[in-house]
């Protein structure tokens, strides 16, 4: 085999190698996207579950056993004091919404992934008709935000400064407003 034929053979092998690597990468990326989609479904169910559980809680520590009127907003918990109260450990012992602030839960789902859910609670200032902003002032509206993430949930479309795909985080929000029947 002459030099020209040898070079042609090497080139053919290189082209074939390149083709195999490209196909392999595409297959792996597709499989990863499919897996992440499945993790997102599970993460969504976990996030909504946490929101639903919070819906069962009283609006504030001050309204667990009594009612407040519109002018009594100063009786509500200060924004800086949000978080679990003494003796409270998890959702089964929380009695009002702001106890969920700073709550962290780890879920290990069989045949899936490990998920971390975190929650924050903020007061909301509502100025009709459409202006809604977070505030530290006590109001009768609270915004709960739940973040669910997993080390297996990676967004390959977004990369950081080192070209590394970033971990994906799902965000769920719900507004709680205080009201009672008279």
């Amino acid at each position, binding site marked *: *085999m002459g030099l020209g034929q040898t070079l042609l053979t090497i080139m053919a092998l290189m082209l074939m190698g390149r083709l195999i690597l490209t196909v392999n990468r595409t297959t792996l990326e597709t499989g990863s996207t499919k897996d992440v989609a499945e993790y997102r479904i599970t993460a969504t*169910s976990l996030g909504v579950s946490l929101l639903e559980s919070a*819906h*069962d809680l009283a609006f504030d520590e001050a309204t667990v056993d009594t009612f407040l009127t519109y002018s009594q907003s100063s009786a509500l918990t200060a924004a800086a004091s949000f978080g679990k109260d003494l003796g409270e450990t998890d959702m089964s012992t929380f009695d009002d919404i702001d106890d969920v602030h700073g709550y962290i839960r780890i879920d290990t789902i069989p045949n899936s992934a490990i998920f971390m859910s975190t929650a924050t609670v903020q007061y909301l200032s509502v100025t009709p008709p459409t202006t809604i902003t977070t505030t530290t002032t006590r109001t009768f509206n609270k915004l709960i935000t739940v973040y669910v993430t997993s080390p297996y949930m990676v967004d390959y479309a977004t990369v950081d400064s080192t070209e590394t795909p970033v971990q994906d985080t799902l965000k769920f929000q719900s507004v709680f407003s205080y009201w009672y029947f008279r």
Partner: protein
Amino acid sequence: MGSQTILDLIASSLVFGSLMLIALRLNGGTMENVQAFREDILVQQNLVAVSQLLEYDFRKIAYCKNYTVISSPTDAIRYADTSKIVFWTDFPTTTQPYGDGVLDSMTYYVGPTSELSVTPNPYDRLLYRVENDATPIGVNMGVTTFNMKYYDALHAELSTPVDSCQLIQYMQITIQVEHPVKWTKYYNTATYDTVYQSAFWRQVRLVAKNLNNR
């Protein structure tokens, strides 16, 4: 034709044959993967469709446009078992998207596995969603697990079928959807048995949130 030429021809034939075999194997593997991913997407889409339907319907447990019709939201659930639930709600109509103010009954349950004995998967079942007293029509979404647990206000699990449905405060819904056909590509890493492609969904839902605003 000299011996060198013959050797060149043999060598090139071997190289060509190897490349051809690699290309064919590559093509076969790619096709298998594409098909498997497509089937996986089908399973996920089925699960999303079922969960969206359940979320929509279960969110409206105890809802009625005419709020005086349901005297207490605690009476909304009429029957509660692990694989069947019956509750009051208010269906939207074309002219009244928020309901017509008349109580409707919704029933969810899964049928026995024998109903889908024609599929290779021995565990899949028909899922039934019945409005009022309409004829039950099951859909095959590949549901293999449809399990509900019920909890009272103190987060204690209630035994099923629940005798006193008014005690139900939360419910946990677990759904698993599997593909009707087993693909050899998927293995249980513990037993090395081939398994069905599956997707899993579990959610806690509050039954009657109107009771709990305080």
